[in-house]
Structures are given as structure tokens and as C-alpha cells.
């Protein structure tokens, strides 16, 4: 994951835009490649940096890593460019390659738009940001052609990136922290995902980048669930509070939302006086507080039952959909059912 410290030190060097329509396979609109970077003034450079920090440090950002097996040329392009010694023309060439690849894979329901590639440094390290921007309706995209060279005007940045309220949907940052190929800090953000997306659509951005999410969603989901349960069992002493937290956790995992954001879960459901401790506990146990895609595959069984734990350690487990049989009062827990059998262990 790209650390907050590196983001604090981020300094943008160059920016280039390419217009990437959808691939229709019928000779439709072709990719419009800039051959020069877009000149930006100091003020816009700062605003752009701030916008990137806001997105990449947000709770919706997630850690990614280069996929072991990928057909995407993006990882190699990033690896090569971020090694020392690449200048302005290499930046333009590399970014054009990234735009061509986006054009090849971008079809069907994926929205067309502009690919913005940013060369940056942070903490003495070299990095790249890739952003896919949607054309705003009515936004002017001024492509300048002069002496055989083309570039997009600074107004593109104003219209598509810096406007108040503009959300950068698909963003990714790669910062090389040493000469070794595995040593990158990376983060991505994909705020465009919808509950109705197919798996292919949901993975479009990471797949284009040739990356996978740092932690498999089913592993991250299971880890969040088990650590949260562990916390509730260990530190939440009030039985009523305990039940509310169990229920909230289960309903979060059963909901249709495609992602989980543990930081939001803590904010919305955990009592104020233990929020910080809960967050610290999750972090100690290496549970990301940021958004990750929800996948309950590994905890299917655990989600089918709801467990109530009394002050003295008595456990009552309710099967899925039968929670109504349990009544939790101030002083007692009542099970509205007949005893079937008593077991040990």
C-alpha cells in the first residue's frame, strides 16, 4: 500500500492525456495520442497533487500488487520507466503504450474516456499514477496540433480533474522504493463499481493494470470477520452491546454492498468510547481499515449462525433466519424453543 508519508511527499513532474474511445472492432473512433506532455502551472500542479492524495489516501483506496501471470503490458512498462534515467520522450512513449493497451481491452459496457499518466516523485523515489477519466458532458477537450506535435491543453485538467466535486473514479499509483522489481508501494481506487457489475466489469481496472488486490477478497473478508468477532468476545463486556455488534457485523456481511470498509463499520456501529481501540485492534491484527471487495466464500458456514455469549460465558447459537427465537433482556437471555438434546464439547 502507498503510505500516507509518501503521499505527503508526492510531487508531480509531468502529466499527459490520451483520448481512449471504446474498441468496437468495426473501425470506429481510434485512440487519440498526445505526443507532448500537458504543460501545467505551479498552482494546478499543487491542486492535482492534493486531488491525488485525497483519492489515494481515502478509505476506498486498496493495496494492489503486480499479478504473477498477466497479459497486461502495464507492469513491465511501470517497472521499466521507474528505473532511473528515463526522460521526457520515454515518458510520452510509455504513456502512449498504456493508452493503446487500454484501447484494446476497453469495450462493451466500459465507459470510454481519457487516460491520464502522471510522472511523480516522493521521498526520493520515482513513481507513476494512472487515471482513467470520464468525459464530462459538455466538457471541452482541447487538443492542440502544432508542427506535427499534439497535446491536450491544461483546460482538460480543469474540466475533468480539478473541478470541485469531481471524483477520480479509476486511479492507481505505483512508487518504486528500490531497484528490485518487487519493491513498489502501490494503491488503487475504483469508485465506479456497482452492485450489478459482472465479475469481469468489477475487475476491469485491476485487470487492465495487470494487478491483483494485495489480499484476496475472500481472505480479507474472513480476516475482518474473525478479528471483529474476536474483539467483540474479548473486549465488549455489555451483553446488549455485544448482541448489537454481532448483528451489525452479520448484516454488514449479508448486505448487497460489493465492498466492505472496516473504518466505516467502526464509525457506524461501534460505540464511541471503544472506536479507537477497535480500530487499533484491527490494525494490530493486520486487517485493513480501507475498502476491499466483499467475498464471504470462506465464512459461509460462520454466517449461517448467530452466537450470543452471556456474561458468564454461556453461548447460545441461532441458525440463520431463526434469530427471532432469542430474546435478549437486561438481565437474561431467553430461548423460545423446546430442548431437543444436551451434548458435551
Amino acid at each position, binding site marked *: 500500500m502507498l503510505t500516507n508519508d*509518501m*503521499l*505527503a511527499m508526492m510531487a508531480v513532474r509531468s502529466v499527459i492525456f490520451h483520448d481512449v474511445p471504446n474498441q468496437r472492432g468495426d473501425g470506429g473512433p481510434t485512440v487519440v495520442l498526445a505526443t507532448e506532455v500537458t504543460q501545467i502551472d505551479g498552482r494546478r500542479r499543487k*491542486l492535482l497533487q492534493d486531488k491525488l*492524495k485525497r483519492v*489515494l*489516501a481515502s*478509505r476506498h483506496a486498496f493495496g494492489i500488487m503486480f499479478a504473477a501471470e498477466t497479459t497486461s503490458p502495464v507492469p513491465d512498462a511501470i517497472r521499466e520507466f521507474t528505473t532511473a534515467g528515463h526522460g521526457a520522450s520515454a515518458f510520452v512513449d510509455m504513456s502512449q503504450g498504456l493508452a493503446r493497451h487500454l484501447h484494446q481491452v476497453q469495450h462493451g459496457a466500459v465507459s470510454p474516456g481519457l487516460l491520464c499518466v502522471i510522472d511523480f516523485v516522493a*521521498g526520493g523515489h520515482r513513481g507513476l499514477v494512472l487515471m482513467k477519466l470520464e468525459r464530462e458532458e459538455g466538457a471541452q477537450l482541447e487538443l492542440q496540433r502544432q508542427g506535427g506535435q499534439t497535446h491536450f491543453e491544461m483546460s482538460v485538467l480543469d474540466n475533468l480533474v480539478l473541478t470541485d466535486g469531481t471524483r477520480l473514479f479509476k486511479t492507481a499509483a505505483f512508487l518504486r522504493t528500490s531497484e528490485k522489481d518487487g519493491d513498489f508501494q502501490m494503491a488503487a481506487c475504483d469508485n465506479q463499481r456497482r452492485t450489478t457489475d459482472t465479475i469481469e466489469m468489477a475487475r476491469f481496472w485491476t485487470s487492465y493494470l495487470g494487478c491483483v488486490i494485495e489480499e484476496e477478497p475472500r481472505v480479507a473478508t474472513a480476516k475482518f470477520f474473525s478479528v471483529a468477532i474476536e474483539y467483540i468476545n474479548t473486549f465488549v463486556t455489555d451483553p446488549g452491546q455485544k448482541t448489537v455488534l454481532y448483528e451489525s457485523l452479520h448484516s454488514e456481511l449479508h448486505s448487497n454492498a460489493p465492498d466492505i470498509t472496516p473504518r466505516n463499520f467502526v464509525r457506524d456501529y461501534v460505540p464511541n468510547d471503544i472506536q479507537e481501540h477497535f480500530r*487499533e485492534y484491527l490494525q494490530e491484527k493486520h486487517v485493513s481499515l480501507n475498502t476491499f471487495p466483499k467475498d464471504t466464500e470462506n465464512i459461509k458456514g460462520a454466517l449461517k449462525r448467530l452466537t450470543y455469549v452471556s456474561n458468564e460465558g454461556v453461548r447460545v447459537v441461532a441458525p440463520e433466519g431463526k434469530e427471532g427465537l432469542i430474546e435478549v433482556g437486561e438481565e437474561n437471555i431467553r430461548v423460545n424453543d423446546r430442548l431437543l438434546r444436551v451434548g458435551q464439547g
Partner: protein
Amino acid sequence: MTVAEIEEARKRWIAERPSFVSFGGRVENDLKAIIRAQGILAEVSARAKEVHSLVKKLLAKTKHTYDSLPDKVGVRIVVRYRADIPILLKAIEDNFAFNAPQDKSSKLGNDRVGYLSVHVDRLRYRRPAAKEFPPKRFFAELQLRTLAQHLWAEVSHDAFYKNNEMIQALPKDLRRRVNLMAGLVEVADREIDRMNSELPNIPGAHLFKGLESLYYRLTAVKPNIELSLEVIELLLPLFRGESEEEIMQRHVSPTFAAHEAALRHVYSDPDGDYSDASAFLFQPEALLLYDRLQNDPDGTLAVWNRKFPPKELERVAIAFGLSLD
């Protein structure tokens, strides 16, 4: 010095002054960094003498030659409190060589008042710290004083009571008034120092002092203390009953230490352009906000919105590489 020697000194200084200007600039920058590392607010300035000023000095101080003149480059550090002076002397000694400092107050004894400062002669780089400024040739005179001492030094510099010899030559009543005024300034200097060490028993005062010492390690921009106390009071409940000392020790100081490099970067924009920065960035409590935004962003946002514009907190967060989104 003979007329010919003075003429020769003038020519040499015209030729050599640019390299001494560079030396002064380097010393000034290095001293600023040393002082900043101590978390002390100070004004630092260095300058190479103008040609006419050098000639005047050689004419007035006949014991000196061009080569022996100790203050071809003069450096001045002005601090707020007397207590800062020994701390800075020690820090400077760790980085520079110099002759034994002269405390002008000791020269006055216990029955006279007047010019107070610490003077350091032949402040120079140790080999091989700055090869381009060999210590035999490049040295400066350093004056280290408080604001109150600076007031007296500045006012008396161009007056007939500049030094003890001149004071003794004054009419008796005027001499008494000069002494009384110098005494008043010294009393004020001591009282300012004492008041600084005796903090008022108001919420936030201890925390402000702790934050201030870290803040001045990052920047010399003076804050608005009233605003600081308001913000500190607003944020204190987020620490759930911990004392102000505990907040510094358990939260702010460790967070600062863990992220010092990034914080330094935030406060050292090469263009010095902070036009889009939050008004709260150049306040010591920005470091308290930084700690809370790292550890309790939602709680911080909730209390902040009760009193201050959310956009300002967002700007602080973004400057520190954090996001409220």
C-alpha cells in the same frame, strides 16, 4: 594601520567579499537548521560587511588588520527567552568551532547595567565540513541575544550611551536615566523568561507548549495562540481524560517521531507557496490534528465540524497525505 594598508584592505575586500557573502549565507542556513532542530523560535541573519563599513572599522579599531578583523561576517541570532541561549550555544558547538563565548553581562559585574549579549568569536566550520570555506580564512562573529537585549542593543547602538566609556562621559542625571532604562530592559528580559517557565493554569497551555516545541522544529512561522487554545480545547475530549502531558508523551510525540521526515517535507515547500494551505497548517495544533486524523479521523471530523469549517480540516489532512473521504 597605515593609509596604504587601509587602501589595500579596501581593494581586497571588494575582490573577496562575494565569497564571504556565500560563506555568510551558508552559515545562516546551517544555523537555521540547527536551531529548528531544537524547536526554538529565533531570528537568524548573517551579513558580510559593506566596503565602507569595513574601512570604518579598520579606522576605528586600529589594533586589527584586514586578516584579523573578527567580524567581516556578522551573524546574529535573536531568541525570545534567556533560557534558549545556553541550549543554542550547545547545539552550535556540536556543529561549529569557535573561541570561548563572551557573556557581556559578566563584563558588567553585579553593579552595572547595559549591553547584554553573548558574543562568539571566530565561528567557523570544522574541517572537512565545508571545504570551500577553510576555517583559517572564513570565520564570523556571532551575537546571540534575546528580544529584550536586542531592543537595548539596537536603541543604544546609534546613541551616546553605546558603551560604558560613552556612558561615563554623560552628565550625571542623563547617566542615571540611561542606567535606569537599561535596568528596566533587563528586568523585563528576566521576567519574560520567568513567565514563560511558569505556565498559567488554563486548559491547553501545557499542551500548547509541547506542541510549540515540535512545531518550531518544522517551521518558524508564528502561530495565533488564541486560535491554538480554541482548537486544543475542542480536541481534548478525543483523548478521553488523559492529561496534557500524557497526550504529548503517548500520542503526539510518538506520532511526530514516526513521521518526522514527511512532516518536514510538508513544511518545506521549495516554492514557499502555501496559498491553498489550511489556515491551521501553520499552527502548532496542526500536529495534534495530525495525530488525531491518523488515529481517529471520524471522531476528529465530528468535533471539528462543531466549530470550524470542514474544508479547513480537509486541507490539513491532504497536506499530511491523509484523506477524509
